[in-house]
């Protein structure tokens, strides 16, 4: 059922816009030939979550120790998983197995660290959360502006398991962070949250699918996005409720602001319901900052730029409120605040690297895709809508 995985060494696996699930993230358009493989490299221990403890697993240029897997077999475990891209103009991929044993509890602090220009990274996680287990996955994705970065997590769960995820990203030339959850119902719960903050010509694609196959499953999803300048945000969220998955409770929200006059947001929230007695809802909005709220703050003496920043941070911050651990939430808030106050370089060209063009060619012009179910671009008036089915 799950679609084939992307392999950067195999051009036949590179989707183009004619593949429905990739219509807004056209890999074949920017990846013309397999990149030269990244060499072995190493990094100092650290990363954005270094202050939160736990064991560190660093996957540098796609290279991990041979038996690289993260296994949690008890309560209160913390692991830091770092994906570091360290070499300009090269490509790498890695697959990591994460296993949370029944009843165990893992906080997975994952970082995508772009420490080079023009790389192609492809990371795959196979995650299993055993019955009654809990996994909280936090992702901070800081890729280079001219990088291509793909992350995909396939998640399986046991009964009464809990999977909670929060992804923060600033995008890349082309970036996709994909999460596919096979939801067993049986009292299991899924929370899939995220935020994207895009400047320059950065692109971020948050794609997810939660497939409810059993009774009484819960899913709650909230993604918030802000697009500045010529950034492009993509949200594709699909929740499937299979026949027999009665009692499912699934909520999905995606809300984005377009702050520049050339930004774009494409959203496709989907509910596929084949069961009875379910409570499912989705809401999707794309708009501009509330001008009246902005005036209210200014009328109290807050300068316009500061007022905009405050409202923007508050808008995105809603996606972080649901992170349970306060110290983790604070790291995420600080990460966001830093990026709100100093936008990342808007172009890889600023790094002055020449090697990137060979691998990655053609600037991603933001041509609006045709027949977009919910596309807002250049005219940041409130658009989109919501729906509810019972």
């Amino acid at each position, binding site marked *: 059922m799950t679609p084939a995985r992307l392999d950067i060494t195999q051009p036949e696996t590179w989707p183009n816009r004619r593949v429905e699930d990739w219509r807004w993230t056209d890999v074949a358009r920017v990846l013309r030939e397999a990149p030269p493989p990244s060499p072995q490299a190493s990094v100092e221990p650290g990363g954005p979550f270094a202050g939160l403890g736990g064991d560190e697993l660093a996957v540098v240029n796609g290279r991990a120790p041979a038996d690289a897997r993260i296994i949690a077999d008890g309560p209160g475990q913390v692991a830091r998983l770092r994906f570091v891209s360290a070499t300009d103009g090269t490509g790498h991929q890695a697959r990591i197995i994460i296993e949370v044993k029944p009843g165990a509890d893992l906080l997975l602090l994952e970082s995508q660290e772009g420490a080079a220009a023009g790389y192609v990274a492809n990371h795959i996680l196979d995650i299993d959360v055993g019955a009654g287990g809990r996994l909280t996955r936090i992702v901070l994705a800081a890729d280079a502006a001219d990088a291509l970065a793909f992350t995909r997590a396939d998640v399986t769960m046991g009964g009464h398991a809990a999977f909670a995820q929060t992804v923060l990203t600033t995008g890349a030339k082309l970036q996709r962070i994909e999460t596919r959850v096979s939801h067993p119902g049986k009292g299991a719960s899924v929370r899939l949250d995220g935020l994207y903050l895009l400047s320059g010509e950065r692109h971020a694609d948050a794609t997810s699918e939660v497939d409810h196959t059993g009774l009484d499953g819960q899913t709650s999803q909230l993604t918030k996005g802000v697009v500045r300048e010529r950034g492009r945000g993509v949200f594709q969220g699909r929740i499937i409720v299979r026949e027999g998955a009665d009692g499912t409770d699934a909520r999905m929200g995606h809300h984005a602001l377009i702050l520049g006059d050339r930004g774009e947001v494409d959203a496709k929230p989907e509910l596929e319901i084949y069961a009875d007695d379910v409570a499912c809802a989705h809401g999707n909005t794309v708009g501009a900052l*509330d*001008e*009246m*709220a902005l*005036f*209210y*703050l*200014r*009328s*109290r*003496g*807050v*300068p*316009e730029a*500061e*007022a905009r920043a*405050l*409202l923007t*941070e*508050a*808008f995105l*911050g*809603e996606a972080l409120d649901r992170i349970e651990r306060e110290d983790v939430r604070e790291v995420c808030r600080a990460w966001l605040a830093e990026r709100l106050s100093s936008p990342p370089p808007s172009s890889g060209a600023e790094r002055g690297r020449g090697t990137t063009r060979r691998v990655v060619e053609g600037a991603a012009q933001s041509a609006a895709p045709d027949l977009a179910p919910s596309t807002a671009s250049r005219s940041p008036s409130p658009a989109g809508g919501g729906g509810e089915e019972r």
Partner: protein
Amino acid sequence: MLSISNLSVSVGDKPILKGLSLDVPSGEVHAVMGPNGAGKSTLGYTLAGRPGYEVTGGTAAMLGEDLLALEPEERAARGLFLSFQYPLEIPGVPALTFLRTALNAQRRARGEAEATAPEFLKLVRAKAAELRIDMEMLKRPLNVGFSGGEKKRMEVLQMAVLAPRLLILDETDSGLDIDALKIVADGVNALRSPDRAMVVITHYQRLLDYIRPDRVHVLAGGRIAASGGPELALELEAGGYDRYGAAA
């Protein structure tokens, strides 16, 4: 304090204010009354600098300085405060954060030292207690889920903390029951002082039983149609606005 001369304002090409003149000296409270649609809220928004409110003629000055040339935040830093008829809900921004951001932005703009966290909290605690506002409420996002009365008390708390020189109260009594009205009026009255001035915009005379004006003006057809002492408000209550040609 406030000197408005022959002010004309359009919103989306529609003329609303048509040559309004009004002087409010320091130490005085002036009521501006008028029928719906007369331009009362437009007056408040224009003085505060709301985008889209285009001044097509006339002047407005505060303590001799041209207000209309200033950005909204500059007007605030110089001591202008508009209490909104419908205070905005600001999701994600706790009321305390909002207050401190505003206070310190104003202080920075005036070249004053910012309030430290303890100074700020001491100030807010004292003012909140007077207005019977629970400090827990101030940890919640500003006005989100607040009742009408709570929102208006938050407006008065902002006034008390920011200590403006010129206060414009736009329909501050709307949505208040009598108990809430008394609390709000007490808060406003506590701010009366010889070096402050207030413009109380209201449709009904009721608020003026609690905030006693020195002068009353009738705003109709986009200009001040009549002015008088407090007794004018009672006449309006009895006779209505009809004689001023509401739709002029």
